[in-house]
Every structure is written in structure tokens, then in C-alpha cells.
């Protein structure tokens, strides 16, 4: 719809800023222009409402602007609708639960290790030192890295099935002679170490490392 030239005078007329011939022309115009008269009525209703309820509408505007966190929160309430506040509250709850509830649980939870098809445990990782590759002779000892919270280690040697297992408080162990004799050149073996706390809780598990005792030694 094309804007009427007199529309810009509506406010001036209602606020008594039009005088003399300009006022007469405007008044004559709205007797002839129903569009302008409708806008004039609407604007008059707005101004009347503002004038009559100014104390309620603008009481806060006339007060000095409060400062600080409370004021900032107050201004936020002006911006957000109740629904937005509800969404914000739910979001904040979820975030707080995640940060203070779930994350610490996850942080204390040890990584998960699959020891065998039916055996899955959680624990820290434990590094094996030797043997890690094929050896020319049956190793005299097996060695792994020390863990601060481990009091006891249990080593297991496999040749398809458990060949030998033993516990030690040290980070290396020599295998007994009878076990050595069972380890035949040309066969592949695997070994793994589990670390336990002083209370007997499993705290770390190494990967299962394979090595072969090569022939010709």
C-alpha cells in the first residue's frame, strides 16, 4: 500500500505540534482519508494508554540504572521469555550434571581391557619392556615398567593356553628352569602382566605380547 503524505503528520497532530493552516489541512484530510483516520485512531489509542499509565510503564526507566551482577541478571530477565528461561534452566542442569556428576565418574573409571573372549577388565595400561620381539633363546627373565600404585604383579605366559603364572612385587622375574624347558624353539608364546594394588585390586593390565623363540640358537 502506498504511504499517504499526511501520515507523517499524525504524531505531530496528536502531540499538538500542528497549528494554523497545517492543522486545518490535516484535519480536513482525515475526514477524506479513511486509511489515515484508522492510523490516527490507533496512534491516539497508543498515546492515550502511554499518557494514562506512564507511572506503571516507565517507572523503571526513570530510576538510575542499577549496576552489578543483580542488575545484569535483571536485564537478562527482560530479554528472555519464560519459555526461554525454562530451556536455559534445563540446559544449565544438564551441563552441571555432566561436569560435576558424570565426568568425574568417567575420569576415575579405568580403561577397559579384553583379556580373553569371556574376560573383560578395567585398569591402567602397563608397559612391557622385554621380551617384545622374537628371541634366539628362551628369555632368562621378563621385565615391565613400574606402576606407582601397584604393590604386586602377576605374570602369565601362554602357548595357546596358560603355560606358567607367577606373582612378584618386583618389576622383573626370572622363569623357573622347568618352565624354560617347556618353551621350545620355533614356537610362539605370549605374555602379559597384571598389576594389583596393596588391597588386591587389579589396577593395570598390559597388552598381550607375542614372541617367538627362533630356531638355530
Amino acid at each position, binding site marked *: 500500500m502506498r504511504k499517504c503524505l499526511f501520515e507523517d503528520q499524525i504524531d505531530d497532530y496528536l502531540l499538538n505540534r500542528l497549528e494554523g493552516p497545517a492543522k486545518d489541512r490535516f*484535519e480536513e484530510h482525515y475526514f477524506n482519508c479513511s486509511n489515515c483516520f484508522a492510523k490516527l485512531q490507533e496512534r491516539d*489509542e*497508543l498515546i492515550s494508554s*502511554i499518557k494514562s499509565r506512564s507511572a506503571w*510503564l516507565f517507572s523503571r*526507566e526513570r530510576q538510575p540504572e542499577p549496576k552489578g551482577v543483580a542488575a545484569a541478571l535483571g536485564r537478562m530477565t527482560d530479554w528472555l521469555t519464560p519459555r526461554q528461561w525454562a530451556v536455559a534452566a534445563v540446559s544449565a542442569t544438564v551441563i552441571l550434571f555432566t561436569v560435576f556428576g558424570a565426568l568425574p565418574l568417567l575420569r576415575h573409571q579405568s580403561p577397559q581391557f579384553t583379556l580373553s573372549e569371556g574376560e573383560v577388565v578395567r585398569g591402567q595400561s602397563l608397559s612391557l619392556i622385554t621380551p617384545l620381539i622374537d628371541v634366539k633363546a628362551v628369555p632368562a627373565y621378563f621385565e615391565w615398567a613400574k606402576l606407582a600404585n601397584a604393590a604386586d604383579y602377576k605374570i602369565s605366559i601362554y602357548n595357546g593356553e596358560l603355560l606358567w603364572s607367577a606373582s612378584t612385587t618386583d618389576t622383573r622375574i626370572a622363569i623357573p628352569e622347568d618352565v624354560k624347558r617347556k618353551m621350545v624353539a620355533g614356537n610362539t608364546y605370549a605374555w602379559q602382566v597384571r598389576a594389583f594394588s596393596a588391597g588386591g585390586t587389579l589396577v593395570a593390565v598390559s597388552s598381550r605380547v607375542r614372541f617367538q623363540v627362533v630356531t638355530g640358537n
Partner: protein
Amino acid sequence: MFLTSLYNTVMDANKPAVDLDELVLKFRPVVAFRVRKALGGSTPDWEDVADEIITQVIEKVRNGEFRGESSIGTFIYTVTSRRIVDFIRQKTKVLKGGPEPSPWPDPSEDAETRERARIVAGAVQQLKPKFKEVLNLYYYQELSREEVAARLGISPRRVSERLNYAQKLLRKRVRS
């Protein structure tokens, strides 16, 4: 009642070039607005004056005084303006020394107006502070656009934009 009976008489007596039914429907609010603006909503006689003017217009149309030299709107505007001047002349002595009529109609004058004012004010209250602030400065404190702009540190054009947008929002909220 008097207005209705007179109106019916006019319709029965002649076949006026102007549709009087439409005339009353269309111009009664315009005349009432003009009269109330001139006399003030608190002047108790303003509605009677508006009715008198409509009656005069119907009589004049019936008597052939409206010859189509101007638009019917201009004709009614002229009749209205003259009657307002007459009314003010008659009442000047009475009003002199009396309380100054409020330039703004009192929204409590009837239930419908009061309810409308409540709805509009409620819609204004829900506006964002930047829009309320412009309405406050421009319509309540009656500053010019330039003064509002200087007060808020924005351009006069921005003031106009905020006023227009605030009115658009209010229109939408009041109608919904």
C-alpha cells in the same frame, strides 16, 4: 434515538445522492474524534456535540446544501469545525476559571476504552527496553525525534525506525 428517527425520516422523504446510511456509519467516528480532540474527552458534552453535528449534516444533505462542490468529507469537516467553534464560544464564559480539561481522554471513561487501554499498555510493557524507552521519550515526554536521538545517542532515522517497529509489534500483539 432522535438521530435514528431523523435519519429514517430523511431516507423516507427523499432519495439523496449521498448514501446517508453509509455517511453516518463512516463519519460518526471521525466527527466524534475531531470533537473530542478539540474539546477534550473530559468535556461532558462532547458526545452530544458530535451527535448534533451528524444531525446537522443529515439535515443539510436533505435540504440540498451539499451540492458536490467539495467532497462529502470536506463538507462534513466544515460543518464540524463551525459547530466546534460555536460550542467553544458558547461555553467560554462557563469554562473560564474552571478546571482545565485534560488534553488526553481519560481511559477510565468507559469499560471498553479502559479494557483497550489495558491491552495496549500491557503490550507496551512487554516491549524490549529500547522500544519502551523511545515510546517514553517521544510520546510521554513529548521530545522531538532529534531530541530523542540526542538523548539515546542514535540517529533521528533510527528513532523513527524504532517507533515504527514498536508500533508494528504493538499492532500485532493487540490484535492477537
